[in-house]
């Protein structure tokens, strides 16, 4: 736990500024490092898969590619909003994953590293958080979604 926190702080301190994608799920603003995002496309139909892996229970098809879906909305106890929801492709350590996000187009931001601090969130893996317009926005560790801290440290 301490090691993870130290790693997070080291990551925060290593860069002068961070390139960030801000998106929302169920109205909750979240962020991700741009290098962890493989793209944003219209959301397709989910193909459910019988599964016991938490938050991984469906697939989406993109042309000839099949992506597993990480149900971040369920993990946050929310539902993606809007008529034309979007698919955010996460560059996960096990391969690309699709995340259903709100219809609001994600925006790009550059955040000074000094503004980024360790997140207090415990329910999802994060690499830090920052404040924008008075709102604290957590930076989701897309690469490690669904991994415990222990598993993340082993990799």
């Amino acid at each position: 736990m301490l090691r993870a926190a130290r790693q997070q702080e080291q990551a925060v301190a290593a860069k002068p500024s961070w390139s960030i994608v801000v998106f929302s799920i169920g109205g909750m603003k979240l962020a991700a490092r741009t290098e962890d995002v493989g793209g944003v496309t219209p959301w397709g139909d989910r193909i459910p898969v019988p599964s016991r892996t938490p938050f991984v229970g469906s697939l989406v098809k993109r042309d000839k590619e099949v992506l597993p879906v990480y149900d971040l909305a369920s993990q946050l106890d929310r539902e993606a909003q809007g008529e034309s929801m979007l698919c955010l492709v996460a560059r996960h350590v096990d391969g690309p994953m699709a995340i259903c996000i709100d219809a609001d187009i994600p925006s790009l931001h550059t955040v000074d590293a000094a503004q980024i601090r360790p997140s207090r969130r415990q329910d999802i893996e994060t690499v830090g958080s920052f404040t924008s317009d008075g709102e604290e926005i957590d930076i989701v560790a897309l690469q490690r979604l669904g991994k415990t801290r222990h598993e993340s440290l082993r990799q």
Partner: protein
Amino acid sequence: MSLRGHYKAASANVQAASFLVVRYGTRLCALPSDGVRGVLTKEEAGNGQTVAWVGVTYQNVDLAGLLSITLDTTSPDLRTVLFSNGHSHGAIRVDEVIGLVEVDREHCLPLPPHFQRVERTWVAGMIFYRDELALVLNPEWVLGELGEEVPREAGAKTIGAFTASVEIGKLC
């Protein structure tokens, strides 16, 4: 007893795997065709808990339930697939039998590694059927030979590695 069609997804190849593709709603599933013993209409299958056919008794298998979906009992194309792996014999009701498909083994896709638990023994992989994705189901799971299911852990945040897996090459 006839199937709608026999669709070759790839050019003839000795390395091909053969599946019976069935439909539940908009979802497609693929059963290894070597286990298919017959396809019956609603009238032929009857309404009992078992189906007796050519000297073999097939127990009803609620595949729709295993997949957490509902069988459309009003479907005019409803069929019962008689399926066997040699030890167990199951009668599987499906909304529709789409047809037999041959797929080059190299076109069988494994379940992505993000699926880490017991489902790796349930779903052997995926194939494309006319641009739609079909899950290749493990006959032992379909026929109830894998024992008790792992209970769902509501809200669990950790993922335990599930080491047992169905080799994709075995079915595809």
